[in-house]
């Protein structure tokens, strides 16, 4: 199959290429990127007035399979990701059974292959069953296809065990993704501890519960020389620590999520449980600091932390609802709507945050539109206006705070290894 993407505005910071170009794809590879390509194709995607990006990579998602297929499966999750323009997804290991062994990794990869949607890259558990007691067989996980290890949802409480995990991971050049939370401080908290939690009488999760563990993990990374990636940064205190560590040369990268850049703890006043996630939405000062950190590059990655929960679990009293929201289908649209509008970033920035940097951190040969590379491509109409409705959400779960939100910018196509996983190509078929 030969595909021509015509007249799209390309952003490819890895190759320092920007502007209107055509892309010629044969099979699963990008063969040529140039102006006015004349080659004959089996199909053409008209991309004029659209932006064409290296396929987006979500390095933090929960696909719930195996274990909670009622909330999401690998297939529905990857379909939802494709609709959001993601061509690669990393699945966190908090499945049942836990992704701490080759068997689960293989099962997940098999399901993903059958789905023929986005690429799936499992993340293995640092410790067996994420219990923080014994190291998982990181070598085997790496060999089976895991691109990182994480006990996401928990910090590795025992600092000595985390030190060993860091030292051990160095043998495989695999990053450790840190969920930073001192559960002694967050306790039964359900939202950020601040003025709003005081007014609402809700139990608070102080910012220090995150930043204390960020500080510890940075110290251990400096000490061991390991590569760590701090997941879902939500507070200014954490950012200050990370910035300082980066300046000292600690091998640290970090991510935040669209919701921390858009919402604040004020939104919890609605008692809508789609504003309940962990770490919690913090104050407008934190949100401002995060936006600034996206702007100045302290934040390397924007990931979704896509966390599906079924409606009957989520539509309950705020205290009883589980943490987490879905995020694939609204991520890039929300960033276009707000961050590009406010000049916090631009399309080159989005490519770095959502494709190039994740690829570098995870050691994937992706994140570019270079000739000879795998044809993972995302095409977006940056001006199309649309409203997120519950009925149109493709994820099996509908726990999104963006329902009813009007976006500017909509994903039109997602292509994975030359195969269109989202978007209507038949309309553009041409006889060759």
């Amino acid at each position, binding site marked *: 199959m030969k595909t021509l993407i015509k007249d799209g505005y390309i952003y490819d910071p890895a190759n320092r290429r920007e502007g209107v170009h055509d892309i010629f794809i044969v099979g699963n590879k990008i063969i040529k990127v140039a102006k006015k390509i004349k080659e004959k194709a089996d199909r053409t995607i008209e991309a004029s007035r659209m932006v064409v990006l290296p396929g987006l990579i979500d390095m933090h998602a929960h696909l719930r399979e195996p274990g909670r297929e009622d909330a999401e499966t690998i297939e529905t999750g990857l379909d939802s990701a494709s609709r959001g323009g993601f061509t690669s997804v990393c699945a966190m290991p908090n499945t049942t059974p836990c992704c701490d062994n080759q068997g689960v990794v293989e099962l997940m990869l098999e399901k993903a292959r059958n789905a023929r949607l986005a690429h799936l890259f499992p993340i293995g558990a640092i410790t067996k069953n994420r219990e923080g007691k014994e190291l998982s067989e990181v070598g085997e996980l790496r060999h089976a296809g895991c691109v990182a290890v994480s006990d996401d949802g928990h910090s590795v409480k025992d600092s000595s065990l985390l030190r060993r995990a860091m030292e051990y991971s160095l043998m495989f050049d695999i990053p450790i993704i840190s969920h930073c939370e001192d559960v002694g401080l967050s306790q039964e908290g359900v939202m950020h501890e601040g003025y709003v939690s005081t007014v609402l009488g809700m139990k608070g999760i102080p910012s220090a519960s995150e930043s204390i563990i960020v500080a510890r993990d940075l110290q251990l990374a400096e000490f061991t020389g390991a590569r760590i990636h701090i997941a879902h940064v939500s507070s200014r205190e954490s950012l200050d620590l990370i910035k300082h560590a980066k300046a000292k040369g600690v091998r640290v990268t970090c991510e935040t999520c669209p919701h921390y850049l858009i919402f604040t703890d004020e939104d919890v006043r609605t*008692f809508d449980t789609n504003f309940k996630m962990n770490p919690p939405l913090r104050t407008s000062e934190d949100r401002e600091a995060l936006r600034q950190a996206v702007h100045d590059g302290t934040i390397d990655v924007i990931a979704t932390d896509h966390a599906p929960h079924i409606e009957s679990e989520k*539509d309950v009293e705020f205290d009883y609802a589980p943490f987490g929201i879905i995020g694939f289908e609204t991520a890039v649209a929300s960033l276009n709507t707000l961050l590009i509008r406010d000049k916090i970033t631009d399309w080159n920035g989005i490519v770095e945050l959502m494709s190039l940097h994740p690829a570098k951190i995870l050691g994937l040969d992706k994140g570019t539109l270079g000739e000879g590379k795998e044809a993972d491509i995302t095409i977006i109409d940056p001006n199309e206006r649309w409203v997120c409705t519950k009925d149109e959400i493709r994820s099996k779960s509908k726990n999104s705070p963006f329902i009813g939100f009007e976006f500017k910018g909509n994903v039109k196509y997602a292509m994975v290894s030359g195969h269109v996983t989202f978007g209507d190509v038949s309309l553009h078929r041409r006889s060759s």
Partner: protein
Amino acid sequence: MAKNNTIWNKKDLLGLEELSREEIEVILSTAGSFKEVSTRKVKKVPTLRGKTVVSIFCEPSTRTRLSFELAAKRLSADTVGITSSTSSAVKGETLKDTAKNIEAMNVDVVILRHTTPGAPHLLAKTLEPSVINAGDGAHEHPTQGLLDIFTMKEKKGKVKGLKVSIIGDIAHSRVARSNIWGLKKLGADVTICGPSTLMPVEIEKMGVSVTNSLDEAIEDADVLNVLRIQLERQKKGLFPSIREYINLFGINRQRLKHAKKDILIMHPGPINRGIELTHDVADGPYSVILEQVTNGIAVRMAILFLVTGGKI
């Protein structure tokens, strides 16, 4: 009582934060009119005849539950109550489903006491009947706040300019929050006082003065509203011992020596006698604790009347 009430048009009473000064004043004046009913030989008016009031109490309560029930009965409403031990919550039914089922039985008012903040708001969003918050976690207890303010106004003649000190476990107290909102809207000066571990963060932004000194809180105060200390907080390490709590924050005659001569002592009950208040203070001349209870019925009658669309 013939004048049309144009100020109150809310279906629900969820908290005092969202009420205006005018709305609070309407409740207080309506309560004033209803207070007399409870002193009659025949303690009943036909105002809510044919209306059904259901109370759902998912947390233990005697006073509030009884007070609501008597208020509804004295307005001639039909009342029925369930508590979480007798409800389907134990069978795993969600609160929303329980409430939807109650709605399907065509009731007019649902009164909810719940352990989690926002539970009545969740119901109000989905239910046709009026929802009255009878206490949601540490968030609000609007009828308690209103009956406290009603009592202060009755005793002092006004609320504006009153110096009210709230003493005790502020962090876990819905009574404190409802008092603060209501009192601030009516122009009172509010001081809160308690151990710093029971003081929620950034509470000063609610417009209150904060102190850890009981003497400071008592000095110049017109009213002390003393909160119940939950004994299990000590077990959770929020203060070292009951003994030390009594030493620092317990109110006794000695500590009231420098208080204003006409100070009012209030308490939402139930009192831990000998802990937050000594016997002689609880039963002493400054105490209006039982009058609060009496006023609670009038205030709740007013609320039931207003949320069901009653016209003054």
